[in-house]
């Protein structure tokens, strides 16, 4: 089963016990970004809703980089060794 390293930004580390990087395993084939977010939420309950709204869209000020490219489509298929980085984007004062 593919596993992915996910970099966690400071605003979300209250969910990961302070960890700045976590590894999640997904079972879906092919693995999609949505599967990683679901696995992340299973391991760290509540984290997904802070990033993805109830309509399934990425929240405006959360960015996810997949292999250093911004990816806003949760259905994007991931390469087997994709590096995932969540970032709190600029959101004013």
């Amino acid at each position, binding site marked *: 089963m593919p596993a992915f390293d996910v970099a966690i930004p400071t605003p979300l580390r209250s969910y990961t016990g302070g960890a700045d990087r976590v590894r999640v395993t997904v079972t879906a084939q092919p693995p999609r970004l949505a599967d990683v977010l679901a696995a992340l939420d299973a391991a760290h309950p509540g984290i997904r809703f802070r*990033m993805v709204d109830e309509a399934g869209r990425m929240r405006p000020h959360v960015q996810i980089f997949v292999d250093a490219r911004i990816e806003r489509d949760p259905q994007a298929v991931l390469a087997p060794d994709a590096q995932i980085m969540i970032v709190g984007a600029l959101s004013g004062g």
Partner: protein
Amino acid sequence: MAQRTGSTRIAAPRRVRLLVTTRKGLWTMTSDATRRSWKLAGPQFLGHIVHHAMLDPRDGKTLLAAARTGHLGPTVFRSTDGGRSWKEAVKPPAFAADSGRVVDHTFWLAPGHASQPGVWWAGTSPQGLFRSADGGATWEGVAGFNAHPQRKAWCGGDQDGTPDGPKLHSVLIDPRDALHMYIGMSSGGVFESQDGGADWRPLNQGVRADFQPNPDIEFGHDPHCVRFAGGNPDRLYQQNHCGLFRLDRPATRWQDIGVGMPKSVGYVGFPMVTHPHDEDTAWIFPMDGTDVWPRISPGGKPAAYRTRDGGKSWKRQADGMPKAQAWWTVKRQAMTADAFPTVGVYFGTTSGELWGSRDEGRIWKCLAAHLPHIYSVTVA
């Protein structure tokens, strides 16, 4: 009949605690029964935008706080030990996935009826009504409102409304009947349910809507804050975008109670605070609603105004406040009263000052300064 403190013996609480929510976290202010010496504590949720925090009066120890951050989506935090520790709701308020609607923030928290321990209600921006039956751990949308076929006609689109997003606020539960409720919406108006939220009808007759082509419309109004009169849930007071109004049920037409306000001050503001023991007494905090709507103290001279006759007349209460060059804004949830026999009144400004009066508004004192933008002040 008014329950004036002179004719009804009311026990003084042993202490008073205020929950002060801000754009950057939650603070608490506590005092003993003298209400002369205050202690500020906090912050909790540093960096979170905390729109509202409320104590559950049914158990005296459960607190809920509605929060989000600039980056992250909206959630609700719960404490069952009076605020010492907090846990996030397992399922925060969120619209049905197939509705296409998205909760931007939970704006208003209201404990449910005394006969329904664990029940809480939440109003959101954009306008949505949610209910929890387990003390705020999980929340379900109230389909009777959120999926009502008239909802969009009542409220307009989710992008319409107030600058920080349209809101559902002023969730009022009739203390005599858990099924009888009122809500206020900016925009939308005041609505009433007789069946616990399964169905709703507009209740806006007599309220002006000067910003509408037809100012006498059935709905589409902009109430800023609606409160029950102290000791009389058949009386409602409303601070509206277009004035001050009072409704005495079973009547359905609101009475204009803004005519007694000085013309130089006007009748625009956000909060409405009612006296807990006297149905005829209420406080407002007027703001400039002229020209381009600055929404700050008229002329830079802040003051509360109090009525003791149900809104027929209003008295300026500004002793202790700056006399000039104080350009304050007080939001709709940022003014409240305690339940002492001689009521304490408190308000917070968007410039981060917390003010209080221990004598029903006669003399005011700055209790704290240098806080972030204050969103709400509630007694806990």
